């Protein structure tokens, strides 16, 4: 094949394509070459590059070639693949040449231009991958998202690719990092998805070149599961589009005004529900049912990260906060120990976000008032009845914030929830005048005559009186009954038609049934009015207002935890391979006590490949805590050197949990996808540290730090591969304009016991307090470095970090403290001796008395298993008792308000206490937490050395009590901060 001719043919083709295209960009994958032609082009380019640099008049051919490699890209090494498939490129080609070729392509043919943060970080490979349209490994994920959320499709969604792309982005929080990169360009994703879904639709104008679209569709169809997913998603899309016609237009999908957002939140119906559950001894517990918040993410994409990645505290509930992303997996029931105040937002997320707070404040609060009525149903549960109206012959619990003084009817019942009082009412078969008076006194009304209920099949939720929830896929039918003679029933829908039914032939008490037409998602009001004719006019006998909330069904997926007996809690929700291996991701399994789950671990080099290694671990007994999991994984998998070596070669780790009929979960973790990455390779001569640079910017700077001199960096040449000396070390690469960096610890080669030893030394012989920030930075550098599978690397890191921490604390706590810490670490002194060094009390005769009030043994035992917030509170208590804060002459704390905004004195003490405990246990967590106030925090600690030493003492004492059995991600046992 003549490359010049081929290039010209491609130019003609892309020019014609560009003329036809208006708003849609041209992609290099739309090259219109048949398979044989493509192969010929590829071999011609390879033949050329072996002997000569790429030529300008072959530029378009190279663009097509690079896009084709991008189409098969699976998140591994783009350039490595490119270079290995293109012998001669390393010597004759340049990456920048490819980028320039794409620039030129984009200018000439209105080609696609990569956008979004991902494109900025991966400035060269973003071009070929974007022009690959939908790389193969992302096709199944797109089909999965479209299938899962097909019930949410609406005609409007298909009017604008950007909107469809935003829809996909909104629902892609559980997908791989690469897919999340793809959805950063919503218009492109929307175009691809529209094309895949609506290609068969009459009047559909293909957005992509038909042959290319056909190729992608066929590739998605190649896997049976993808084919099924796409087929079902297409059916749903075609159905929705037909209901409203099809047009591609531009609309503004964002909410620009707060009142619009407010209206939208109300429409989504995220109001929590209250219910009472009976306990032994005529008591009730109060449950708050929190609705699924996942639809908020689609409507308000800006709150996505907070909802998916931060824990949630429920107002009035005790115990641990809800795990990250838990509110996105269907409704959750939480027991309330305290009745929330009227102005409490019921859900509070760790990361504060004013937008989300506004949305939650709109609907996610208790219904205002001082009384709440619950109707006790036949199953024993009491459901909130919002109308505050009772019926004869029924049982209710009335809950009030004020106590009931001499209630005229009913009997008191106990609630296991502070702040409210409850009265049990059992109404007689007919309401007597005494009862009428009593109900009036209790400010309750009577539900009269007219009764409405979901007929045939129950609603998703029904409060027994007039509030209910249905799915959009259903056609609700309501039953109606009136005890009196009624001539006419009028049913009016607030936002739709009404119906009048003559009931003159219907005897009183006989039910009639009404079908309500399918309603769109949102809240709809339906009013029932029963009239009886009275001569010329008619009297209203009874009326009832029904509130119907319509919602979309939640998608099903094989790992769906909703309604089942097993629950897998992952934190973070989509951990990377590195996080899982290094124990920085927590896995908990909630399931029946004592039942077992089997566990299988698989390593793969690429998606769909035969596993590099597959191992069945011994079964685990449920419930399984994250600590138990970490231990199990460590003992039965990580400790095996063979597994550690495979870890270094793998990109994907899958863990299957299978508990017979109870269910199965699969966790899939991929390697981090960052512009700079290190991997290590073992060769006969030793390790090679390999740097993968996809940033495409300036050459990264590369440094090596030895274990012996952990604060001195040796600058290395910027080459992709670095032979590692036998002693190993820390390798760091960084690109300044992206602030991107990567680091890895390479272990030493160990032949005998003497190779295991390591004595780190500091650069400065006598460091001073000015060195504190620098030492903290080095602790952070070593703590954040990635670890290979090899266990020695982890031991070396511990050694270095421990060494740096000891020096850091000799500076903060003073020389004497430093010596005592050293003696404590060598077991020369015990906890008592260390406590003495915190703040000794000198007797008149000169002898030292131990400060027994500083974390006495009993308190330490209690704090050993307590959450970190309790330990902070204990330190605050000590600070206040001993007045350890640095006070000014006017007795006001002079410690800076560390975080957040303006702190009062108490908050300032609490913040300084947490700062002290963090720097004493894991200074790496301070970067985000102290938020620019690090230096002021250090300044405060140096002014309050007793406080600082007390914090450090607490850290070391608890570590000691736990026998220094550190969990992954910890420097000291029992000290793992969440953020």
């Amino acid at each position, binding site marked *: 094949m003549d490359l010049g001719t081929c290039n010209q043919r491609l130019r003609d083709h892309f020019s014609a394509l560009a003329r036809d295209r208006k708003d849609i960009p041209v992609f290099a994958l739309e090259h219109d070459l048949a398979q044989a032609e493509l192969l010929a082009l590829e071999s011609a380019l390879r033949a050329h590059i072996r002997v000569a640099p790429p030529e300008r008049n072959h530029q378009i051919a190279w663009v097509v070639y690079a896009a084709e490699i991008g189409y098969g890209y699976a998140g591994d090494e783009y350039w490595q693949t490119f270079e290995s498939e293109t012998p001669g490129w390393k010597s004759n080609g340049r990456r920048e040449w490819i980028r320039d070729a794409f620039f030129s392509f984009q200018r000439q043919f209105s080609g696609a231009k990569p956008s979004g943060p991902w494109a900025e970080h991966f400035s060269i490979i973003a071009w070929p991958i974007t022009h690959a349209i939908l790389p193969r490994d992302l096709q199944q994920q797109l089909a999965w998202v479209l299938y899962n959320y097909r019930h949410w499709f609406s005609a409007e969604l298909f009017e604008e690719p950007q909107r469809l792309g935003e829809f996909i982005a909104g629902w892609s929080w559980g997908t791989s990092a690469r897919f999340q990169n793809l959805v950063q360009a919503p218009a492109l994703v929307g175009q691809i998805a529209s094309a895949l879904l609506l290609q068969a639709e009459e009047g559909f104008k293909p957005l992509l070149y038909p042959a290319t679209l056909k190729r992608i569709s066929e590739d998605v169809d190649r896997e049976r599961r993808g084919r099924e997913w796409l087929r079902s998603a297409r059916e749903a899309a075609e159905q929705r589009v037909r209901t409203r016609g099809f047009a591609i237009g531009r609309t503004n999908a964002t909410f620009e005004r707060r009142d619009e957002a407010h209206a939208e939140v109300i429409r989504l119906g995220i109001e929590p529900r209250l219910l009472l559950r009976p306990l032994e001894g005529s008591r009730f517990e109060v449950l708050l049912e929190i609705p699924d918040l996942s639809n908020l993410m689609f409507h308000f994409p800006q709150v996505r990260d907070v909802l998916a990645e931060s824990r949630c505290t429920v107002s009035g509930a005790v115990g641990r906060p809800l795990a990250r992303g838990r509110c996105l997996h269907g409704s959750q029931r939480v027991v309330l120990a305290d009745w929330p105040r009227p102005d409490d937002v019921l859900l509070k997320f760790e990361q504060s976000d004013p937008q989300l707070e506004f949305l939650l404040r709109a609907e996610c609060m208790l219904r205002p008032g001082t009384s709440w009525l619950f109707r006790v149903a036949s199953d024993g549960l009491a459901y909130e009845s919002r109308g505050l109206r009772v019926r004869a012959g029924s049982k209710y619990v009335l809950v009030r914030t004020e106590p009931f003084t001499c209630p005229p009817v009913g009997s008191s019942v106990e609630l296991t929830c502070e702040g409210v009082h409850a009265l049990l009412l059992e109404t007689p078969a007919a309401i007597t005048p005494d009862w009428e008076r009593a109900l009036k006194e209790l400010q309750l009304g009577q539900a009269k005559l007219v009764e409405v209920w979901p007929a045939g099949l129950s609603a998703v939720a029904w409060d027994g009186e007039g509030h209910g929830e249905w799915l959009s896929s259903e056609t609700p039918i309501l039953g109606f009954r009136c005890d009196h003679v009624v001539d006419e029933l009028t049913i009016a829908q607030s936002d739709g038609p009404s119906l009048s039914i003559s009931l003159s032939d219907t005897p009183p008490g006989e039910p009639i049934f009404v079908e309500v037409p399918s309603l769109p998602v949102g809240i709809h009001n339906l009013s029932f009015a029963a009239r009886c004719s009275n001569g010329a006019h008619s009297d209203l006998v009874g009326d009832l207002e029904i509130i119907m909330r319509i919602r979309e069904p939640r998608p099903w997926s094989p790992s769906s935890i909703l309604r*089942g007996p097993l629950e897998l809690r992952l934190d973070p929700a989509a951990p990377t391979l590195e996080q899982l291996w290094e124990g920085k991701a927590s896995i908990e399994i909630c399931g029946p006590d004592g039942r077992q789950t089997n566990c299988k671990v698989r390593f793969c080099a690429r998606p769909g490949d035969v596993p590099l290694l597959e191992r069945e671990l011994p079964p685990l007994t449920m419930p399984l805590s994250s600590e138990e999991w970490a231990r199990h994984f460590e003992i039965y998998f990580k400790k095996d050197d063979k597994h550690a070596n495979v870890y270094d070669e793998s990109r994907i780790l899958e863990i299957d949990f299978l508990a017979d009929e109870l269910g199965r979960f699969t966790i899939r973790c991929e390697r981090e996808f960052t512009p700079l990455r290190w991997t290590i390779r073992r060769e006969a001569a030793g390790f090679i540290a390999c740097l993968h640079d996809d940033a495409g910017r300036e050459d990264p700077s590369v440094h090596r730090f030895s274990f012996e001199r952990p604060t001195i960096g040796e600058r290395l040449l910027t080459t992709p591969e670095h032979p590692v000396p036998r002693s190993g070390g820390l390798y760091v690469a960084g690109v300044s304009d992206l602030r991107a960096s990567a680091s890895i610890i390479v272990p030493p080669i160990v032949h005998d016991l003497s190779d295991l030893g390591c004595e780190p030394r500091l650069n400065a012989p006598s460091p001073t307090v000015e060195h504190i920030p620098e030492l903290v930075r080095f602790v952070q550098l070593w703590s954040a470095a990635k670890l290979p599978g090899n266990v020695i690397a982890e031991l070396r890191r511990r050694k270095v970090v421990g060494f740096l921490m000891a020096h850091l604390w000799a500076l903060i706590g003073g020389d004497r403290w430093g010596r005592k810490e050293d003696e404590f670490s060598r077991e020369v002194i015990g906890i008592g001796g260390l406590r003495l060094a915190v703040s000794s009390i000198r007797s008149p005769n000169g002898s030292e008395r131990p400060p027994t009030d500083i974390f006495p043994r009993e308190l330490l035992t209690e704090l050993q298993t307590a959450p970190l917030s309790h330990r902070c509170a204990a330190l605050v208590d000590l600070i206040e008792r001993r007045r350890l804060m640095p006070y000014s002459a006017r007795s006001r704390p002079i410690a800076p308000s560390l975080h957040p905004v303006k702190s009062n004195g108490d908050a300032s003490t609490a913040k300084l206490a947490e700062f002290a405990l963090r720097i004493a246990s894991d200074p790496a967590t301070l970067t985000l937490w102290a938020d620019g106030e690090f230096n002021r925090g250090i300044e405060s600690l140096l002014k309050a050395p007793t406080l600082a030493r007390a914090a450090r003492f607490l850290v070391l004492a608890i570590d000691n009590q736990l026998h220094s059995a550190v969990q992954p991600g910890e420097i000291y046992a029992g000290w793992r901060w969440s953020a």
Partner: protein
Amino acid sequence: MRRLNPEEVHAQKVRELGLDPAALDLNTPEGVAGALRRAVSHLCPCSSATLVRSVVDPLRGLVSDPEQAKNLVQDTLEAMISYGDVLEQPEFQEDDSPAARLLLYAAPASFVVRQSGLVILLGIAADHLSPLGSELERRIQYSGHVRRLSPLFGTEDLRGELRELGLLELTWDTWLRCPRPIAASQAVAASNQALDEVPPSRDIPGLQILDPMRPVGYYRGRWTEPKTHTGRFVARRRQTYGADLWCYVQLNNGHPQRMIDFPAFGSRWRGCDEAWHLQMAIDANRNSPQLFRVKPTGNAAVLEFFSPAPAWARRRWDAIGEPVPGAGSLFAYRIPETEIEEERRFASDALWLEEMTTGSKW
């Protein structure tokens, strides 16, 4: 909006459940099972009372005998729990306190394949969405609470297709796993030994016992409150919310002396499964075994039972037969004639039941 008559309500809702309104209504076992699956998909985890209520309440004005409808719903739910659509498990406690409440959970969407290629579908997805494609969904055969799929032309790879769709495959052995057959006397002795080893109990509120002296043919009539009873009894304790707790209790003049709870720690069976099995052993040991009846009907036979059977036994009959209404019995299955001898042996060896002969009485 339009007014519907009761027949139209039945037809519309049966259609919504994916069933044939020409053949079924909401008061048939298939209709009730469909309504229960839908309720499970919205409400679980919850108590059985909550599920029964949510199916029975909407039938107001649509069935002639609400009490009979309620019984049908309760029996169907029990059959679905035994079958494996619904799982009874202790409620998970966040604070590690011992869980006392037994709640019902939806089993994950799963399937079992018989050697013939026939697939038995199990489990319920949230919001009653089918994990199957619409084409497979249309091919489901409903028989009482049982759902089956037959391969087309006998060659279709249903197993592969369902796995691809993400359904969990349970092996035949896992689904039908049952205790190792032992003699009734050994079963009783094992429970007695376990009871001997626990410390004495105090009063047990809400205790009801199964009185072995009462006739084995009327299960509901065998339950009584302990009065002057002395001996060891299968018993249950009512819960304010959630299923009854099952136990084996030693009484002295009606006063509890010792008690062990069912199920045993880590058991995959429900408390009632273990309790019913023990009661079968107790009755057999007392020479008044529980009974079953075989009624020939053409080239099949109906097996009738008069006391509840453990889930593992019912699953076996769900797999080989089809549930049919049992006139005068607690539940019944139509079984192919070729399987009858095998099932007679199973009833005798694993459940210690005795076959009723014509004219026999209890």
